[in-house]
């Protein structure tokens, strides 16, 4: 069955909040409401024509206006796959400190979602309501913030472990050294200046100067940042 067939099947299931199939994308997807997610997933798993045994991937993507969750499913019986998306719009001024979008957890439907959802919470700060074990998975428990958000501030210390390039080695610290993480982080002022965004990076649109071009012109193509 192709994506259109699956979408039709899903539409016939009588679940509210199922959007249209976006066929313009390379992998056609359907956007569903957050409330309908668990029902949709259960249906896709249990329906014998869909028989999506496996949840491949749970991905949260931060865009300008929203955080978008993509669920990649596939069926080994029927050799088809499907993408379900949930969109959480960004509230006014929502940044990584204040805004944690919430979607229902599908860990009860697919065991595989357990670790994937924990990872999305860890790295992007998406709250999965009803998750059996909502802890961080990759980063240490005492980590502040969610690093895959675009406005994440790079820390310079975790506990007393230095994360800066030019930090003093731990064994050379004086006896009266105190970890700077005890101070509150200044809001909006990163401890390390976050690296320049991708579009400003020197590689962007870098043009090779022609061989016979006067080298004097090449002087101002020097590396920025």
């Amino acid at each position, binding site marked *: 069955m192709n994506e259109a067939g699956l979408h039709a099947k899903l539409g016939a299931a009588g679940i509210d909040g199922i959007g249209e199939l976006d066929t313009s*994308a*390379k*992998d056609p997807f359907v956007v569903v409401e957050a409330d309908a997610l668990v029902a949709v997933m259960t249906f896709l798993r249990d329906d014998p024509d869909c028989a999506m*045994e*496996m*949840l*491949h*991937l749970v*991905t949260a*993507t*931060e*865009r300008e206006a929203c955080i978008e969750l*993509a669920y*990649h499913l596939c069926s*080994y019986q029927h*050799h088809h796959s499907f*993408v379900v998306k949930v969109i959480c719009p960004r509230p006014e001024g929502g940044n990584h400190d204040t805004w944690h979008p919430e979607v229902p957890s599908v860990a009860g439907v*697919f*065991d*595989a979602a*357990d*670790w994937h959802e924990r990872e999305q919470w860890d*790295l992007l700060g998406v709250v999965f309501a009803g998750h059996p074990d909502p802890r*961080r*998975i*990759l*980063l*240490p428990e005492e980590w502040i913030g969610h*690093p*895959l958000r675009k406005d994440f501030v790079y820390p310079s210390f975790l506990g007393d472990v230095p994360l800066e390039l030019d930090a003093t080695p731990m064994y050379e610290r004086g006896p009266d050294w105190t970890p700077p993480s005890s101070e509150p982080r200044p809001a909006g002022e990163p401890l390390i200046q976050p*690296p320049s965004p*991708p*579009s400003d*990076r020197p*590689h*962007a*649109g*870098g*043009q*090779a100067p022609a061989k016979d071009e006067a080298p004097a012109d090449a002087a101002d193509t020097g590396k920025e940042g």
Partner: protein
Amino acid sequence: MEALEMFTSDRNADVYTEELKLNLGPQHPSTHGVLRVELAMDGEIITDSWCDIGYLHRCAEKIGENVTYLQFTPYTDRMDYLASMNNNLAWSLTVEKLLDVEAPERAQWIRALVAELNRIASHLIAFGTYGIDLGANTPFFYAFRERESIMQLLEKISGARMLYNFIRPGGVANDIDDAWMDEVSAFCDDFEKRWVEYNTLLTDNFVFIQRTANIGILTKELALSNGCTGPVLRASGVKWDLRRDVPYLEPYDECEFDIPVGEGTHGTLGDCWDRYWVRMREMIESVRIIRQCIEKIPPGAHMEKSMVKMYKTPLKPPPGEAYVRCENPRGELGFYVVSEGGNSPIRCRTRAPSFCNLSVLDKLLPGTMLGDAVATIGSLDIVLGEVDR
């Protein structure tokens, strides 16, 4: 009756028992890197276990959002560092899908050839380290001997021993020549003999079978629900291999090869021995594919013409998203990339096969013994670089 109850309860109260928490890792000889497992032990028997990962979290997804598409290729090497060709392949296919480009025919055959070679190398490490986990040190040295040959072969064409950065969007970095392919087929002949030796030494060994059969049984349902893929899933009896079912390279469509599936030879279906044996047979299947690749490889370009300029100007795929899965030695590696038309993606998500395979560990361990825990972890064949990314 009351007296008896009192008697028994008193007896129980007298014996002071305490659950022993044993911390396995991150520095432990048999956790294959920096996995940490916390075990609750009742004597030698594990009653509960908690996996703790993240000791090798290297921010790969953040880096992917900040470097260009081409520049991320060497970072994919460093995820599953035992099978970096396969990782390069998956990433290149993803970028190609975003760009609507297809690699030339010869490049596809070269890709399949080197990917299968790397699969053998990766399974050899799994075999060797599994021997060490179970106390047999010698297979490790034999496995590394053959692996060294593969690394020298791949070094000749790519220029690096381990992290090749050879398969790039649009094709492969260098062309291969006939002399090199002759060396590969000589290696294949040698390897098949060695493979029989491995089986005499380890696979058929009575102690080895005792240690692995009926241990860590992963049922089909559990494997599917947890998203296990690759040899772990096939050992549980699911005949699913992307190379055959969704051929993502031309050679996989044209070559003949079998897909080894667990049969429960020495015990229950889906035990450690089955997982091990699926891997061992996959090596031989890879040799078959390599032989056919050498035979059928067509002439032509090794890199798409329009893609050569990517070295000087960054690739700019149109807005959109692509999800590509590849059959890695450890399972299905997927890259989900969201582009908004810039130099770098805005999201670069990796579906790491080891990550999903490892998530089943907590369900396999309770009820087994400490020695079995080591055998189970080894049979899942995880690479922590990929689990934590």
